[in-house]
């Protein structure tokens, strides 16, 4: 049975690390549905968070293989029960009809309007992937949409 897994890795912050690490997935035919990378406070390292879909009985082996990589300092599958996961999206709506603007302003309350011009409005939304996906659906009723998403990042709560 296939499940979605969030794999959080701490890796060396050097060129070529993303290539070699992502290749572990590619080699085995996994699609990376989402990836986010950012430096840690000790900027010799970065956190790379991957979202992949995998069979339950394959995921542990995948983590062991990840752990073997020289540049991977730490790897773990994030426990979905203790997880805070968020994504950021910038959604640009091309406004066809000026009369739509109040309505757009309304729905944009879920996030923040960060830019407005004669023909377009850009809204920043932060939240779960589902919240963003649903908002994009909704926003597309109001005009043509352009969207840029960061991909999921996540962290475990508590100890």
């Amino acid at each position, binding site marked *: 049975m296939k499940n979605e897994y969030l794999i959080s890795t701490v890796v*060396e912050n050097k060129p*070529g690390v993303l*290539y*070699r690490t992502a*290749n572990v997935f590619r*080699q085995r035919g996994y699609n990376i549905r989402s990836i986010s990378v950012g430096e840690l406070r000790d900027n010799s390292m970065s956190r790379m968070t991957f979202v992949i879909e995998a069979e339950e009985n394959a995921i*542990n*082996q995948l983590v*062991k*293989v990840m*752990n*073997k990589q*020289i*540049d*991977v*300092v730490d790897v773990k599958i994030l426990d979905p029960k203790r997880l805070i996961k968020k994504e950021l999206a910038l959604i640009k709506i091309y406004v066809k009809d000026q009369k739509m603007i109040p309505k757009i302003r309304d729905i944009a309350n879920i996030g923040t309007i960060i830019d407005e011009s004669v023909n377009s409005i850009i809204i920043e939304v932060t939240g779960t992937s589902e919240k963003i996906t649903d908002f994009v659906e909704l926003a597309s009723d109001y005009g043509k949409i352009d969207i840029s998403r960061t991909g999921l990042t996540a962290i475990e709560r508590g100890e």
Partner: protein
Amino acid sequence: MLKNISELTGSDALIKALEYEEVEGIFGLPGGANLPIYDSLYDSDIRHLLVRHEQNAAHMADGYARASRKPGVCFATSGPGATNLITGIATAIADSSPIIAITGQVASDMIGKDAFQECDIIGIATPVTKYTYQPLTSAEVPQVVKNSFHIATSGRPGPVLIDIPKNAQTEKMKMNFPTKPNIRKLQQLQTADLKAIDKAADLLLNAERPMIMTGGGVIISGAFKELQAVAEFLVSPVVSTFKGKGGFSETHYLSLGPIGMHGHVEANKLIIESDVLLAAGARFSDRSVGKWDEFGNEMTIIHADIDPSEIGKNKNADIGLIGDIKTTLSLLLSAMGKKAQKRQSEYEWINRVNEIKDIWRSKPLPAPREITGPRLLKKMREILPEACLVTTEVGQHQMWASLHFDVAEPGTFFTSTGLGTMGWGLPAAVGAKFARPDLPVIDIAGDGSVQMTESALATSVTEKLPVITVIFNNGMLGMVAQWQRLFYERKYIGVELQGIPDYVKIAEAYGAQGIRAQSMNEFEKALKNALNSDVATVIDVPINPDEDVFPFVVPNTALKDMVIA
């Protein structure tokens, strides 16, 4: 402690760093992008062995590494030189062999501009190496070398590639030669958990039908004495995987020989009867154990390996013992010794094992004619001294060697199993000869394989590393033909080599000795001659193309369903 040396060029620093690693020889071929490296090598005591194709340099480094248990080093220039190494590097990672490949690269300001002989070798080599480095300044070189040797040789060994842009070879900078790698995640050598060892010891001591499966890890680790001690304490029969062949002497009374696709009938039959299996340095390859979900369902499996990602990968283990196999086996022996005495030498299981072994081993080899693959191998074993190194190519001859050539001295048999690289055996033999010039080195070969890398003969002759190549010449890609025979209704395509080339003439063209042996008598004379020769010898033995290798465990079937004839 850092050894400060005043300013050196990157290439001088590279050679110095290799000297500090006690490298004895480098297999390589110079080109534009590594001229500075070669210039620095000129003044070194490290020997350079010139190849005629970089693939051979990588295979020679690999053969050297397996025979010496030290890392092998090869050099190539940029572009095609580097890409020519890839087959050899992929072979090494598939067989966990430590080699360091050092390639020249165009200058950093030319990278990305499609410069002459520029190629993204780091990109290409990443999936087939343990790690790659591209030092962009010369000062980085010594630490990169130190790190590379550590990575290649610790934990589960494997290849590392260092790609040095030309400017990093030529610029002069202040150098430090570190004595330690500076990798954050050093390859920690885990030792097996003592509680797990204890449990494993109990299981083995209480087993009614114990079995040891020795794999490639035992050979890589040199754990021969430890394995023998454990086997003798338990009075447990020992089978080997094909890669593990020779980890346990096949003349030992407990040896059943190889299991697997072309393993001994008795070995395949008996392993599936065991109740407790100790897998030592093996990875449960499908070639060894047949269809995974039909293997070992009734047995308790103790899996000892240095790579934690192998435990549970192909087969679930009841107990995992993670660590270097030499240490694990010593700990196991110690734990068993505290709990019990050595088992008595006669008990029900061992009696059954010997009975089955006798039945199958007393069957005479089919002899439809004087020379067959199997008979040639028996004759070779008769004539060759126990202390000799053997490599093989890939094909029917290789599988007949698995079945019919008993390895007497542990750790003297080497073959490309993971990748199954035709053409590996001859250059690997040359590399092995460099490691052990005191021993005869023989490549068991097929006529399809040899021509892939036959230019290694040039190195064998010019570098005075005489090896003996015995070609099982059936004018065919024999193994492919066998599969076409058995699975494709004899629709032979692409397998007829038509007796080209004439290997005796090829040998002579390379300055080696070429002998055609058309009878067992001639073969015996040729091999004895070769053993006494100072120059490489190729013995070309015509054999009948219609021979099949049996027994055969057909892919995706269980060991119990092996086809015996």
